[in-house]
């Protein structure tokens, strides 16, 4: 398959994840959408690494995977803390910082 096929597939997954981030009400659902978007980025990195025979793309993929896992851990801890304080994780109700 040409490089474009992988890039278009990654763009499609990215768009689906973006749709999830924009439309989900639940904070955990929003986090799942972000996961999809980061996965699409990883597909891009690995395909460029393969088609340019450059190992840097694989290294960056490992880094993004590790950073994503850390981000999920912190994000879910924040969600649990918010749930303890507010008894809801509906994103529409979390408007404390709204001016």
């Amino acid at each position, binding site marked *: *398959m*040409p490089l*474009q096929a*992988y*890039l*278009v*597939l990654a*763009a*499609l*997954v*990215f*768009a*689906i*994840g*973006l*749709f*999830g981030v*924009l*439309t989900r*009400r*639940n904070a*955990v*659902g929003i986090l*799942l*959408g972000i*996961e*999809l978007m980061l*996965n699409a980025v*990883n*597909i891009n990195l*690995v*395909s460029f690494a*393969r*088609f*340019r*025979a450059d*190992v*840097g793309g*694989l*290294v960056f*993929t*490992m*880094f993004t*995977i*590790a*950073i*994503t*896992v*850390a981000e*999920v*851990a*912190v994000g*879910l*801890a*924040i*969600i*649990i*803390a918010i*749930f303890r304080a507010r008894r809801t*994780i509906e994103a529409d109700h979390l408007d404390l910082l709204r001016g």
Partner: protein
Amino acid sequence: MTAEVVGFWLVGAVLVVGSLGVVLSRNLFHAAVLYLPIALVATGAIFWLLESPFLFGVQLLLYAGGVVTIVVFAIMLTERLVGASIRQSSRFVFNGAVLAAAVFVGVTGFVVQRAVPSAPPPPAGEQMVLLGRALVGPFGVALQLLAVLLVVALLGALYFARTED
């Protein structure tokens, strides 16, 4: 049709269906336990098609193993699993679909116009050897910073999730 072409369309279809399930499923638990692992494993299979079996293993261990487990625990702690409260509704569906479609069309239009190599070059050597050398060579400092980041993230997660007493 070579095996790679068949595999690409098969895995791509599974990946898109799994991703759509994650964002469209009415039941958040199904999205996290069923569709998210499907999408993540399909992404790992794409890595395999791109001749990176090591990243396929990393993807399985960290995403399909770790992330899904944490997400399931978070859902169990914040939702009442019995009853109707786990049903999810979405908002701004039309606006979100328009914006996501615009992003997809924009990126695809940009990608398709560019002239890129259509056939991958032969690999420069054993992938694991190259990856290991790169991790301790030019990317050594970044790897150490990543270790620091993981420790800080773990401490931060513990701090946020702690109880007051």
